């Protein structure tokens, strides 16, 4: 839409309640201040957090970007994908292979990863976005599994089920980043740029058209928009940003497994988007933080019951926060200012 309207909220096809109102003027400076404080804290993390913690935060940032890219599809365009990890995986393998065989220069690996993700999405998206609803779910699931299988079977290139390991560490201007703090700063910079890109898209007239398609595709057609083109463009863009996140992931973790491109990753990510609040971009980023923390930090200590815990979190979230964490913020901001509107958005 425009510079000054925040992305509309609300899960596709579900509710339109506490979400889509423009934020009140008074809260915008507050949001800006909060944003700046958050930025400063994020930038200062390596100065007072140990390398292990810094590493975990790097991973959270990568998954935050990944989740935001999925939100462009799920929350903003209304296309729930079950195969979004495919583009993440393609990006990760691309970055890993480029680093191993050509150059580990971070900017190059990460950009090529984004291109690879976008190309993969472009090659399959023209088919996928022609469908909708359950068929879109099934098609994206199939695409994701296809990429997963490819990663597993093309073992001369990808290392098969062992994965691609020993990926050289990221270099910036020829110097390898060996300290967790430097890697973190690189990741932070790329994630912020990626998030900025996604935000620009979401706030643009193009993004407004995507939300129009999410809310009422038939009406968009009668207004002279061709939904297919917009959905296809959104699919490719989302693939590109997911690839970017994948490229960061490869440089950060330095090992890529077929499962990083598979269904479990996609499902986890969808969980992050819904948990955080689809359609807000920042909500899914928070959701990703929760998911990564629960899975990586508490998962191993629960004797492998991490997924179970995530499942419980998910069920609770759906019941308690139907619009995710972001919905919670919207409700607080809107209390007493607005009549509640509880209607389906179809």
């Amino acid at each position, binding site marked *: 839409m425009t510079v000054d309207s925040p992305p509309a909220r609300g899960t596709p096809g579900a509710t339109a309640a506490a979400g889509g109102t423009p934020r009140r003027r008074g809260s915008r400076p507050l949001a800006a201040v909060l944003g700046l404080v958050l930025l400063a804290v994020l930038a200062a993390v390596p100065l007072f957090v140990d390398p292990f913690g810094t590493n975990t935060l790097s991973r959270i940032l990568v998954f935050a970007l990944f989740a935001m890219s999925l939100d462009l599809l799920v929350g903003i365009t209304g296309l729930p994908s079950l195969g979004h990890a495919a583009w993440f995986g393609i990006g990760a393998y691309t970055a890993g292979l480029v680093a191993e065989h050509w150059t580990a220069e971070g900017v190059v690996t990460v950009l090529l990863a984004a291109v690879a993700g976008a190309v993969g999405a472009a090659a399959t998206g023209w088919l996928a976005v022609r469908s909708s609803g359950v068929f879109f779910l099934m098609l994206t699931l199939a695409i994701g599994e296809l990429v997963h299988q490819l990663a597993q079977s093309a073992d001369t290139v990808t290392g098969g089920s062992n994965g691609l390991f020993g990926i050289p560490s990221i270099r910036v201007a020829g110097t390898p980043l060996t300290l967790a703090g430097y890697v973190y700063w690189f990741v932070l910079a790329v994630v912020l740029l990626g998030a900025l890109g996604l935000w620009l898209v979401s706030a643009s007239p193009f993004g*407004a058209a995507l939300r129009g398609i999410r*809310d009422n595709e*038939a009406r968009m057609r009668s207004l*002279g*928009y061709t939904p297919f083109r917009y959905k296809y463009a959104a699919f490719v863009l989302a693939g590109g940003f997911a690839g970017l996140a994948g490229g960061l992931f490869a440089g950060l973790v330095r090992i890529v497994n077929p499962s990083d491109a598979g269904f479990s990753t996609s499902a986890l990510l969808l969980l992050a988007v819904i948990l955080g609040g689809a359609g807000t971009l920042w909500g899914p980023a928070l959701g990703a933080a929760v998911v990564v923390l629960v899975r990586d930090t508490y998962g191993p200590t629960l004797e492998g019951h991490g997924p179970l815990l995530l499942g419980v979190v998910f069920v609770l979230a759906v019941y308690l926060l139907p619009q995710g964490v972001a919905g919670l913020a919207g409700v607080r901001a809107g209390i007493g200012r607005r009549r509640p*509107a509880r209607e389906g958005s179809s």
Partner: protein
Amino acid sequence: MTAPLLSLSGVTRSFGALRAVDDVTLDVPAGARHALIGPNGAGKSTLFKLVTGEMPVTAGRIRLAGQDVTRLSEPQRARRGISQTLQHSSLFLSQTVEQNVLLAAQRRHGSRHSPVPRRQAAARERTRALLADVGLADRATVPVAALSHGERRQVEVALALACEPTLLLLDEPAAGMSPAESARLVDLLRALPESVTVVVVEHDLDVVFALARSVTVLHLGRVLLTGTPDEVRGDTAVQEAYLGTGREALFLDGAGPARREVG
């Protein structure tokens, strides 16, 4: 004479055995204020859908400004200047009134492909003007989901006008509006420039006769009659079509000069 703006020849649409629109031939000249009336189920909404391209025709041709658009998709036809309000409001419920109208306005006045934020001053200005025209100036930031039924009808009209149409199809625009709201609507539509051709489906015959300079009566999918409002009011076949539908009174109560009693 120039080609009519909208020209239908032999337009037919079947749903199984039912011919909802049956061999309709009709010319609407540019600048017309044309009404399409008929009892419930006559096929009025279906005919509109065939014109906009929401539904393909079973047979027949549709021409817009002399060009055959029968095979064009709905968005293509919309970009050639067809715009509509729907009988059942179809809006973007999670978004505000302004955002709704802006979606239509940005297609003509803005940069709808732009992947980065734009001010869209022209589109916003147009949106503001339209919202004032339909009487929603102070509701711009309200989510559409929170509007009353009548207000949503007004958003529909603003949305349709924001497309800057050459052919405006209105499907029962006044249904659900209060008398004051529908009077405002009539004023708004009467004030439209001649460059906009208007075809309106409406059950409220006060609205029809206040707007239309020509009327087509549809009955069971077929054109019963096309003529001036007076001719239509006086026609016995039309009165018979409406008999038993509870709407005969609309003809008898008509304040027009050609008012006639049915015996």
